[in-house]
């Protein structure tokens, strides 16, 4: 292992909803170095999506313990936009619609903030078209309202357009594969693979192994009941696919039985 600092380090993270007693994330640890692709798998309700939102700074959760270091800085007190400008990106499981706001207007603003620059509309339009094209989205999307009237697949592809445009150093993909047909899955995966580089890392959150056939992870983690219970290489995903989550659960039950 090199001596460089991790890109992301989650230490003993505990998260709950403000009105509830029980924690959703219960002492989670995760370390990601630059250039790595991690897959985070787990059954529904294991806390995967909560982790994604907490990393990005969603205001609806309460962190009761632990730290999240991104590029060496504890980011838990930072606003979501501060984190985005540092190069953190979340591809949403359910992207939000913003009626009346065109993709071009929205992303021009995002682009200017991310790169701390001013860009003329016409110039930005050209940049945007390249990224749309990469994800095989028609140029006409530039003038359409954000996510409004998009199919599920279009929404997911548009998330990756944004990822491609904003060049984050850490991308968290929250169940980007759900609701995608095989063609769309290939397009999305190609988009992500095209972004892979020694400087860039990905955390691919998924319920199924399928997307990992296209985006090969360096590490696979299994999350159950708010913490990572097992980590391994790509083969772990295949094992899961074969044996199901009950396998991990029963192993876990066995391991923790008195």
């Amino acid at each position, binding site marked *: 292992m090199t001596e460089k600092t991790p890109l992301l380090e989650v230490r003993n993270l505990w998260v709950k909803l403000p009105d509830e007693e029980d924690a959703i994330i219960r002492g989670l640890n995760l370390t990601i170095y630059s250039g790595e692709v991690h897959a985070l798998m787990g059954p529904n309700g294991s806390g995967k999506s909560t982790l994604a939102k907490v990393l*990005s*700074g969603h*205001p609806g959760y309460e962190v009761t313990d632990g730290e999240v270091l991104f590029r060496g800085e504890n980011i838990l007190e930072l*606003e979501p*936009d501060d984190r985005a400008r540092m190069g953190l990106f*979340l591809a*949403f499981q359910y992207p939000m619609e913003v009626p009346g706001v065109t993709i071009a207007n929205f992303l021009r603003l995002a682009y200017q903030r991310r790169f701390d620059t001013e860009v003329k509309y016409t110039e930005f339009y050209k940049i945007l078209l390249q990224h749309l094209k990469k994800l095989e989205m028609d140029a006409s999307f530039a003038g359409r309202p954000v996510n409004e009237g998009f199919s599920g697949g279009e929404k997911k592809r548009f998330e990756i357009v944004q990822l491609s445009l904003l060049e984050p150093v850490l991308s968290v993909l929250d169940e980007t594969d759900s609701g995608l047909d095989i063609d769309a899955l290939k397009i999305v995966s190609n988009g992500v693979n095209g972004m892979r580089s020694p400087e860039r890392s990905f955390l691919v959150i998924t319920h199924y192994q399928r997307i990992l056939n296209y985006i090969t992870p360096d590490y696979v983690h299994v999350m159950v009941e708010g913490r990572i219970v097992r980590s391994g290489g790509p083969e772990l995903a295949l094992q899961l696919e074969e044996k199901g989550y009950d396998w991990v659960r029963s192993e876990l039950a066995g391991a923790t039985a008195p």
Partner: protein
Amino acid sequence: MAQPDILNLDQDYTQKYGFHDDIQPVFQTERGLTRRVVEEISHQKNEPKWMREFRLQAYEIFMSKPMPAWGPDLSRLDFDEIVYYIKPTDRQGRSWDEVPDEIKQTFDRLGIPEWERKFLAGVGAQYDSEVVYHNLAKQWEEKGVIFVDTDTAVREYPDLVKEYFGTVIPPNDNKFAALNSAVWSGGSFVYVPAGVHVDIPLQAYFRINAKNAGQFERTLIIAEEGAFVHYVEGCTAPVYAEEALHSAVVEIIVKRGARVRYTTIQNWSRDVYNLVTKRAVAYGDSVMEWVDGNIGSRVTQKYPSVYLMEPGARGEILSVAFAGDGQHQDTGGKLIFAAPHTTGRITSKSISKGTGRASYRGLVQVLEGAHHAKCNVECDALLLDEDAKTDTYPYIEVNEKQVTIGHEARVSKVSDEQIFYLQSRGLKKDEALTLIVSGFIEPLAKQLPMEYAVELNRLIELEMEGSVG
């Protein structure tokens, strides 16, 4: 009563529009409204007898009508504190150089002369009670278009004025129409001859300068058969934190096959009571469009109306209201279907922020015989804060069987999820909120000439500034 909190909310408004000039008016009536004040106004204007009698009759109607109790709270409006007529200058300019310097500076600061040069067919500028500048580009004058202030019209086009004045909105229509009819001054008179298309907008700008002033302009627009005109008005006032009153009457006659679009961007300071009656009559196959944006004022009551008089007439009302802290925007529209095969649509969009309240109030009335009338009403309200309020009062009266009426109302809150989504892309929280609001009013912005759309967006941005703690 001083309201420092309102001032603070409006710091930017104070800087941009809230200044006032220390000009000495050449004449003003005493505070409060009496028969003598009405006579004095008529006398100052050297009016014909018929107008003087019209005013005095209207005064009696005003005095006899109770304050409307069905709408927003008007209890702080004190008719005795208002100055009903303030004449800032003796002359009216046809070039800006002829306008007295202090007044011209005001309009310079507001950018009006620049706008005129760039993209308007004509401009009228009213300062307190009188129109201080009026000009129409020569090419339109040559085509027989008339665009003058209404006082001038009474003198120079008496027959036209007499034929139409007070026919669309008679003084007994409501208390504030009666008030306007009694003390009206200024406003625009527009006449577009048959078949003439004035394809760039005419604009009027209304500025209240004096404290406790009342501004009562009277606008009359006549579009002859097959004519087209787009009339735009804007308005601002200094911030005094004392009540001022703006109560206009706008009457529009849209003859067969004609089309009139009337756009308002109302941005009065937050001490102005804005109680306005606007109505159009639309004849066969004509189109009347009201685009009504209300951003300023303490209280606005305004329901632009279209009476659809003959088959094929169409009325479109697009109303956008922004109610910030302490503001009540009670707006909407009325469509009266008085002939078969007439169509109309009311689209209302409101945004309530802080303690602001936006009410939609609308009337759709289908008279007997107006079969195959088609009408659609859509109300969207956006709430930005927990304390913000919205309500709808849709009145629908249908006296005919074969009609199609649709009504939809939606209230939405800006969701944390939406803001989080935009923030997660690097937008600051207030940028995210502003973007969501600008998207919400996009249907209005789309209807405006580009320069106005930009102005509207800028105003919304100002309103949104500092909205995030």
